[in-house]
């Protein structure tokens, strides 16, 4: 029941993001959307994920989007009426996905296939093999260490990408008075 009402709030937030033209409000609502998601993860026992979503989704990404708005424009200019082509595409895709869920194991089903392979091994053996109480940490850092190395490399690469795209220029250019059309990278 809690989850259904939270999901309802999330849907309401998402729909208002769809309609609002003021981008500042849209960005703030996306922070609220993330916070609702964090509460849902908490209710569904994913404490680590809830923690991350609250810190990252509601915190950092909202700050970054506000920073972008300060550098660009905070109002959406053209606001089309309902676009029927995309709407039809979205409805068809959604319908197919819903059809695909019909034979899925129900929510909370302990016999679902997802619980029967490696997950049960992690739960039963990680205490003996790794000796760390938090199973998520032992899977993240030990069993799936390669994955996490890759993810860390992705974060590294993304930050390097940001530095390359809008990183700082050298000061020399300003002293010589050359006009910069913004076409160079630092």
């Amino acid at each position: 029941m809690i989850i259904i009402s939270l999901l309802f709030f999330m849907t309401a937030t998402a729909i208002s993001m769809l309609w609002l033209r003021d981008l500042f409000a849209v960005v703030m609502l996306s922070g609220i959307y993330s916070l609702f998601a964090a509460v849902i993860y908490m209710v569904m026992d994913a404490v680590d994920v809830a923690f991350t979503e609250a810190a990252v989704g509601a915190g950092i990404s909202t700050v970054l989007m506000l920073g972008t708005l300060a550098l660009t424009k905070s109002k959406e200019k053209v606001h089309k009426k309902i676009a029927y082509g995309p709407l039809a595409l979205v409805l068809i895709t959604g319908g197919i996905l819903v059809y695909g869920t019909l034979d899925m194991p129900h929510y909370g089903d302990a016999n679902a296939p997802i619980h029967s392979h490696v997950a049960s091994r992690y739960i039963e053996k990680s205490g003996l093999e790794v000796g760390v109480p938090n199973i998520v940490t032992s899977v993240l850092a030990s069993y799936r260490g390669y994955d996490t190395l890759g993810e860390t490399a992705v974060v590294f690469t993304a930050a390097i990408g940001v530095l390359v795209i809008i990183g700082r220029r050298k000061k020399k250019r300003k002293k010589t008075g050359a006009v910069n059309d913004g076409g160079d990278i630092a």
Partner: protein
Amino acid sequence: MADTFSGLINYWVAIALMMIGFYIVIAQGNLVKKIVGLNIFQVAVFVFYISMGKVKGGTAPILDDSIEVYSNPLPHVLILTAIVVGVATTALALALIVRINRAYGTIEESEINEQDNVLDASEGKP
């Protein structure tokens, strides 16, 4: 029927959220809004994954002698890293938007296309 409804409603709402995000991405012209739409889509996928990992009567996957049933830790690990990677790639997209705004003076897709067309026409391209 009621059983099916209560068992699958989480997935359906997650799909509805995905589709709202999808619609924003393909139908709206503002680039920042497209990124917000992508975020909506992304979080909906996360909710879907975490829903699948929940076990009825289970608790958070932190080992303790007094607990018998744990929820599945595997989706948690996948989504945990996906969230952080998601914000890093969002930052990259926002950086591109800042750069586009600097070059074109707008973040509306239609106006960018218009400027490109004018440029193409002046260079004699079709």
